[in-house]
């Protein structure tokens, strides 16, 4: 036994050996150091549970000791905060009690695992991460303000055009009214009024666009049509391009390219890339100054590509691997913060995408952004939420509707629930997703351009997939549900306009049926 005691003395962990009545038989040196209880004090202690108090009541030493002694098994406590007698200092520990056979009887090793430092560092880490997130938000905002500052000259030039038209039309109206011959000039008067109205609308749109870009800031993603996002970016930078006589082209392979993204953050990235392209072209001053913005998808719809191509000065080979680093700039001090590409890269990464640079053929650069298709990105976004949850009872629902407003409505209605929405605007791409992912329910709009609900359901069933399917449709098409209910095992129907409750009722019906 003395050899074993000597072994205990060599251990770093504070350890006490007690008998079945919790009387202290032996303790190692580290226990006195840890507890700050001298041998004199420990001699006076009648039972071990008098040694410390559980500050947060998470460690019931009497209870776990009783469990260890009655069942003669090793027992582990929860992590808890304790204070040793006569001391104000507290520690975060886990207590382990191990029965040890000694002659005919049992003794109990009480081991204390001190987690105070880990907890302290973890708490500091959380505070620092929160501060970093705030700093990042401020950087993003500062980057936006810088962009707007740089675009102001072009934007104010853009506003001056409609202002000139409105002013000129107002003068004309004055002339017509002074002439007294309103009836004779009625067409010209109407035209002047229309010109004033359209000019004011144009100015309003420009300023609203700017205001939205600068002031709206949340990290929420939603289903957006990237064509309109790219067009908004072009409107912001267009005046600057016109001022510098640089042609700005936009090429899009499809009318609707839907993504699950934060519209303003993507716009911020595009504004950064387009401004950089403009600067590069002005610097190089080629004969034909041109920047092209293009939007395309992969054949299977799983990837979206946005490209900014310019025939400007390009990026030197020696610095290509640094351009996405924070604070890296080739501009003079005061002309560029070096944060534009770094922030853009982080924004794209937060969308599970990538951004790369390549040299353009001949001269200039191509920046290519690759984003996951709408189904994959909404799934990935939801998966990261799911993995953070303690309770794993997330319902995964695939919603297929060509109207992004419907997908956004589903997302909003269920954002705080234990329901994960994966959205798709195209049945064919939704079928691809179903081949790769397990979902709990499919909710499909009945009338979609690519195929209707019955055609979609038939393909799903022919593949041997018995996932519950719910039709989303108007009252006029309810009969289709009734026809397909038995034929294609359609669980339920949600009639538009729908409420959250009607969706939940339908889900309960579908999940209930599938459990049977």
């Amino acid at each position, binding site marked *: 036994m003395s050899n074993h005691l000597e072994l205990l003395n060599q251990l770093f962990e504070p350890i006490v050996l007690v008998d079945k009545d919790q009387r202290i038989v032996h303790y190692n*040196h580290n226990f*006195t*150091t840890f507890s700050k209880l*001298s*041998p004199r004090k420990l001699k006076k202690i009648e039972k071990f549970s008098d040694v410390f108090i559980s500050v947060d009541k998470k460690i019931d030493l009497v209870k776990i000791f009783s469990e260890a002694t009655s069942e003669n098994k090793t027992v582990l406590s929860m992590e808890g905060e304790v204070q040793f007698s006569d001391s104000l200092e507290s520690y975060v520990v886990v207590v382990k009690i191990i029965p040890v056979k000694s002659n005919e009887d049992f003794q109990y090793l009480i081991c204390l695992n001190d987690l*105070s*430092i880990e907890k302290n560092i973890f708490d500091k880490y959380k505070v620092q991460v929160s501060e970093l997130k705030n700093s990042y938000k401020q950087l993003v905002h500062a980057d936006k303000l810088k962009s707007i500052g740089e675009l102001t000259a072009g934007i104010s030039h853009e506003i001056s055009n409609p202002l000139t038209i409105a002013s000129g039309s107002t003068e004309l109206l004055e002339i017509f009214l002074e002439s007294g011959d309103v009836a004779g000039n009625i067409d010209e008067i109407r035209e002047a009024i229309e010109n004033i109205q359209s000019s004011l609308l144009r100015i309003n749109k420009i300023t609203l666009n700017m205001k939205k870009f600068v002031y709206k800031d949340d990290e929420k993603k939603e289903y957006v049509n990237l064509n309109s996002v790219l067009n908004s970016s072009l409107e912001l930078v267009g005046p600057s391009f016109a001022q510098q006589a640089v042609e700005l082209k936009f090429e899009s392979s499809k009318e609707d390219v839907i993504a699950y993204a934060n519209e303003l953050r993507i716009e911020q990235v595009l504004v950064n890339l387009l401004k950089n392209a403009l600067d590069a072209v002005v610097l190089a001053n080629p004969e034909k100054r041109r920047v092209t913005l293009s939007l395309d998808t992969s054949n299977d719809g799983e990837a979206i590509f946005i490209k900014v191509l310019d025939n400007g000065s390009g990026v030197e080979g020696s610095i290509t691997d640094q351009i996405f680093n924070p604070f890296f700039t080739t501009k003079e001090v005061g002309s560029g913060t070096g944060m534009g590409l770094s922030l853009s890269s982080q924004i794209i990464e937060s969308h599970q995408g990538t951004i790369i640079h390549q040299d353009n053929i001949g001269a200039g650069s191509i920046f290519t952004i690759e984003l996951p298709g709408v189904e994959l990105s909404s799934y990935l976004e939801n998966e990261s939420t799911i993995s953070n949850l303690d309770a794993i009872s997330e319902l995964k629902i695939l919603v297929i509707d060509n109207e992004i407003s419907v997908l956004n409505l589903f997302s909003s209605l269920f954002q705080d629930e234990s329901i994960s929405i994966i959205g798709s605007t195209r049945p064919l791409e939704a079928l691809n997703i179903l081949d790769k992912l397990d979902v709990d329910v499919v909710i499909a709009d009945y009338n979609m351009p690519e195929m209707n609900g019955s055609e979609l359901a038939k393909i799903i069933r022919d593949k041997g997939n018995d996932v519950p399917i719910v039709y989303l449709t108007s009252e006029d098409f309810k009969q289709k549900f009734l026809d397909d209910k038995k034929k294609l095992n359609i669980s339920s129907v949600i009639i538009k306009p729908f409420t959250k409750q009607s969706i939940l009722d339908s889900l309960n019906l579908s999940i209930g049926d599938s459990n049977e």
Partner: protein
Amino acid sequence: MSDKLTTKYDIDGDTAIVYFKGMIDEDSEFETIKGLSNKTYIFDFDEVSLINSCGIREWVNFLETIPKDVSLTYRNCRQIIIEQINMVHGFIRTGACVESFYAPYYCESCDEEFKVHLKSVDVKDSKAPVVTCSKCQKSELEFDAIEQQYFQFIK
């Protein structure tokens, strides 16, 4: 008031006397004294309130920046420092000496604990020096730790 570690030093010829105050932990920095190029360092721990394993790591890393031929002396070591010296390899470098420290004593008559300032040279054969209670002036204080373990560093 923050108990973050502060350091200040006095230079006396070839000797730098460094005074530590506060907690030696994961936030401690020793930048102010890293650049000193004295032949002798005396580290005074009289006002150190706490030291944890992260602080020990920072301390050991700091010691490695001091050239091997520099003489190191530890002075006025609090009980927490002595405990670390006895437990952690590298806290006190080979060749360094602990000049003075505090040891725990107890007076049974007064029922009071004392931290008594001792010099290492006064400890013979790991036996705690005899000390009379400064309060009652009568009783001999009882050494309030295990001598073999506490005076291990002196060996």
